[in-house]
């Protein structure tokens, strides 16, 4: 067996792949957080719970309605996105005039409620979700066996991230969005319905979280707390990247996933904490984050 730095290549590439997968989820989730933060100025603490809801929605669609993975990929984000729209209309919309911290507290409370309800209903143990047939199995690349589903997750989430970037940076809709981020009053004066845009943006961000949840369902077990700890790591990712740029949060997400994977190979004890340590270092050197604009 070949080795690199005393580590079997098989294990190295295996961990790198896991790192890339985690990175895909970090990227998708931090992207959603950044999009929401840009327009609403709220850090969506419910994001982890909404990611979990996406996975559960996929499970429900399969087991109650017989709709498979591909349908779930389409339908689950819409369903969860609609719950997001309801939350925004009923609750978040009342907080925009207050300190942004209240938004954080409200969404934290909502996360507790959602996770508590799912835990009450399904217990803490996870539910299995099968890998769709079309993506089952793997290909032998010579140096490692690549499970097709995992490759799909990386490629698809990258595509979703790039599509989001394209919409926000290159289309007319995106230009409205960016303008409203800068100065909502002025955009309203031009006749754009900003409150509706805010609502839909929140729904979209939440939908991204749910999409990540659907993709995660066949890899991790579907459980009520699957997003609870993840969201804290994603917060650290967001702090490292800074929320200034869309591409920034995508790049940071993937990069940190890879670094985490490498740490698992070379110094497994630190694999849980490496992202937080990087966050601390980045804050000391560049407080506004790698891609954030200094204020």
């Amino acid at each position, binding site marked *: 067996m070949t080795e690199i730095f005393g580590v079997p290549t098989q294990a190295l590439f295996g961990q790198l792949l896991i790192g890339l997968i985690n990175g895909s989820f970090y990227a998708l989730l931090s992207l959603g957080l950044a999009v929401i*933060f840009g327009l609403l100025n709220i*850090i969506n603490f419910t994001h982890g719970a909404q990611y979990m809801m996406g996975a559960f929605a996929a499970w429900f669609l399969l087991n109650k309605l017989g709709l498979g993975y591909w349908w779930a990929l389409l339908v689950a984000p819409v369903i969860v996105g609609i719950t997001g729209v309801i939350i925004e209309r009923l*609750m978040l919309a*009342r*907080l925009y005039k*207050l300190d*942004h*911290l*209240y938004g*954080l*507290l*409200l969404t*934290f*409370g*909502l*996360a*507790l*409620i*959602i*996770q*508590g*309800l799912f*835990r*009450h209903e399904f217990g803490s143990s996870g539910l299995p979700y099968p890998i769709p047939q079309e993506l089952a199995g793997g290909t032998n690349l010579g140096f490692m066996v690549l499970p097709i589903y995992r490759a799909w997750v990386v490629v698809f989430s990258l595509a979703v991230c790039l599509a989001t970037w394209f919409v926000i940076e290159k289309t007319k809709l995106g230009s409205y969005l960016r303008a409203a981020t800068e100065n909502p009053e002025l955009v309203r004066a031009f006749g754009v319905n900003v409150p509706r845009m805010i609502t839909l943006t929140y729904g979209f961000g939440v939908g991204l979280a749910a999409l990540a949840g659907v993709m995660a369902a066949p890899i991790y077990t579907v459980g009520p707390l699957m997003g609870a*700890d993840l969201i*804290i*790591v994603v*917060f*650290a990712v*967001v*702090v490292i990247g800074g929320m200034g740029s869309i591409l920034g949060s995508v790049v940071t997400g993937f990069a940190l996933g890879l670094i985490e994977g490498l740490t698992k190979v070379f110094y497994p*004890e630190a694999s*849980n*904490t490496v992202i*937080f*340590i990087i*966050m*601390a270092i980045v*804050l*000391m050197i560049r*407080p*506004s984050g790698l891609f954030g604009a200094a204020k």
Partner: protein
Amino acid sequence: MKHQRIAFLLMVAFFALAPVMIYPLFLMKVMCFALFACAFNLLIGYGGLLSFGHAMFLGIAGYISAHAAKVWGFNPEFAILAAVGVAVLLGLAAGLIAIRRQGIYFAMITLALAQMVYFFCVQAPFTGGEDGIQAVPRGRLFGLVDLSQVFNMYVLVLAIFLGGFLLIYRVVHSPFGQVLKAIRENEPRAISLGYDTDRYKLLAFVLSAALAGLAGGTKALVFQLASLTDVHWTMSGEVVLMTLVGGLGTVFGPVAGALVIVAMANYLAQLGAWVTVVQGIIFVICVLTFRRGVVGELASFLKKPL
């Protein structure tokens, strides 16, 4: 400040007389959490800094105090002192990193740092992992007073709680506290007036960490247990909830909030996952309609600060 003196005397009277009616261990728990919440409130209520990672100070102090008392055989006063010392060091390190950003970022950073401390506690050998440190001896205070007697322990906890409470009161009403409030209201203005705001914020952060550590170290001796529960992010959330329910930025709010939340957790304990749901609902209600909290509402009714 006459009415605050009356409120303080009422509070002292309550905690002094309540053990006749109410289970003392419950009251000691309330006092430990009240001190914890007061320490947290010092940051958010007066400095405008929302720490979402205060469990790290409570938890790590608990471990240190338990380890010192059980393994090193420290007297309780030194065990607690060691716990506070470590909380101060941790507060200094975390504070130096966290105060580099404000507002929402500050909350996210403290949360992430606390998660790092949590993973450290999961892995470090001396914390006992999932079991925690159990059967911690309460020992003899100054080598004289036997703390395994409930009465003695109760008096000690009451003294620590009141001491911490008065210290916070003093700090908040000192020139230092005024500057802190100025930073909360308008930081650029405070800077332009010549205040080194980072130093003030760091000092407030360390002080808050020290008092949270005092609460954690004491709590470990009261329950003779230090466990992962106290370092977990849910604990950071709970202290936010206590302070929010009682009233952010009020002197007595955190105490009232701690009483409410601890009592609720006690009565709902057998309901399992519903506790989280109820806590979440209280969060949502407080944020949407009840932002001043119990004591804040009372104060605005009496038209006097409490």
